């Protein structure tokens, strides 16, 4: 494209932004409202993933050691367990420490266990699991492996809880793709239609440009640029609105989130997701303009009216 034509495109965009500011504003607001819903879903997903991760951190396998395990054997066992790929962290509790913990757990009632030998409770090893290995079958396999160790007497873990959490993770993963996909399509159609209406309002302009011999590219370029600007402006506005909602919720529901969510506080979209929302606005604005223009230009060129 010649430099003079590029200059013409930018002058047309500038003129359109000045003269049709309300049309552009209305389209940007539509983009903002639609992307707000999409962004809110992304934020919900971020917090849900955070919540699931926090719940997953609480999954532990407890391996109780036998009574006559020598310190050297115990040390070797701990090293072997630590080297397992599924294991995130290992915590050893001696018999003495187990007794102390039990006493402090009983609190005022600790007198009830007076007279019992202090080595009545077994030593134990608590294992937390890495996030990629928190499904029930992997945990069961790990438990079986631990049971083969001669130093270990019993292995326990919350099997039902792990199974339920696995189902919840699966449901959230599916919901992410299904709801996210539906929302994305809805966003695409709503933004596309908003852009189309804005372009319809300016069909005379397109028609005149066609009649004076402007190329398709020259006719479309200002509309596509405007669509991009509307998309990015709408996405930025939706991000700002999401931030506002997040700030208000963060203040009002601190106690609520502390009770319900082990993550402690709500999280806002990270930089990557914020950029994704802006890019979605940009892409939707551009694609909406291109698709609408193609259909409109095709319709007009083939239009028939009586002379």
């Amino acid at each position: 494209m010649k430099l003079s034509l590029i200059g013409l495109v930018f002058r047309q965009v500038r003129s359109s932004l000045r003269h049709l500011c309300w049309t552009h504003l209305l389209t940007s607001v539509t983009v903002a409202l639609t992307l707000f819903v999409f962004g809110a879903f992304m934020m919900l997903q971020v917090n849900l993933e955070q919540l699931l991760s926090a719940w997953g951190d609480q999954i532990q396998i407890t391996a109780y050691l036998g009574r006559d395990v020598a310190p050297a054997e115990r040390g070797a066992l701990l090293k072997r367990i630590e080297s397992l790929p599924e294991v995130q962290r290992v915590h050893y509790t001696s018999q003495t420490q187990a007794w102390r913990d039990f006493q402090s757990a009983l609190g005022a009632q600790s007198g009830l266990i007076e007279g019992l030998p202090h080595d009545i409770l077994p030593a134990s090893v608590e294992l937390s699991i890495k996030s990629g290995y928190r499904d029930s079958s992997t945990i069961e396999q790990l438990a079986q492996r631990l049971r083969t160790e001669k130093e270990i007497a019993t292995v326990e873990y919350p099997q039902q809880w792990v199974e339920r959490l696995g189902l919840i993770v699966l449901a959230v993963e599916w919901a992410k793709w299904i709801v996210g996909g539906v929302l994305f399509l809805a966003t695409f159609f709503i933004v596309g239609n908003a852009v189309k209406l804005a372009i319809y309002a300016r069909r005379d302009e397109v028609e005149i440009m066609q009649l004076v011999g402007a190329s398709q590219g020259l006719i479309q370029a200002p509309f596509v640029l405007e669509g991009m600007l509307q998309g990015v402006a709408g996405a930025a506005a939706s991000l700002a609105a999401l931030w506002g909602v997040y700030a208000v919720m963060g203040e009002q529901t601190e106690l609520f989130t502390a009770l319900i969510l082990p993550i402690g506080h709500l999280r806002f979209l990270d930089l990557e997701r914020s950029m994704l929302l802006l890019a979605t606005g940009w892409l939707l604005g551009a694609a909406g303009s291109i698709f609408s223009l193609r259909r409109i230009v095709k319709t007009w060129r083939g239009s028939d009216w009586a002379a």
Partner: protein
Amino acid sequence: MRIQLVHVSKTFPPRQRALVDVNLEISNGELVFVCGPSGAGKSTLLKLLFREIDPSDGQILIDGRDVTRLGGRGIARLRRKMGLVFQEFRFLPALSVLDNVALAAQVIGTSKKQSLAKAYKLLKELGLEDRCDAKPFALSGGEQQRAAIARALINDPSLLIADEPTGNIGDEVAGEIVQLFLKIRDRGATVVIATHHRALIQRYGTRMIKLERGFVMDDSPEAIRMPEYTW
């Protein structure tokens, strides 16, 4: 530009026949008036020439090339060689008269400075130099007509197509405009004008094609002198 229409028909949905089996030839550098009553098919004929609409049947050859087969790019290229004056003017309301006229030059790649200079020169020739900054709809019908003609002439077209270019102006200005079209013809361009202005056609005595209900009723040299035609 040489124009040939070969068995051209145009029917609008559902069954409105606007043109029926039209066969015409317009030579390069010829000025032709297309006339007839309202609904005769004059505007349809003109719109077919610049491919705003497609024929239902037949071929339209411009310089030997069938324009009915052109795609989007081909149509754009064809229109860059044409100057079009529309019955309803078709200006961009947000732009000034000067910018509207200059736009037609800018879309084919002429620089902004050159386009504005050319537009101003043409508007001055047509007596609109003091209306350059006005918005098109602030102009009278006659002034808009002249601005539309300026826009049609800015790219030195090989074919000028004008639909009722003297419809909103008095006889004196209409005469001046036809004189201008004659000058353009003398420079080698083909000029096709649809008009109701019978007195004007008779005054200049150029070729006249009479349409009625979509048929070419008369295209003879004598047609112009027939007093019984009423349109």
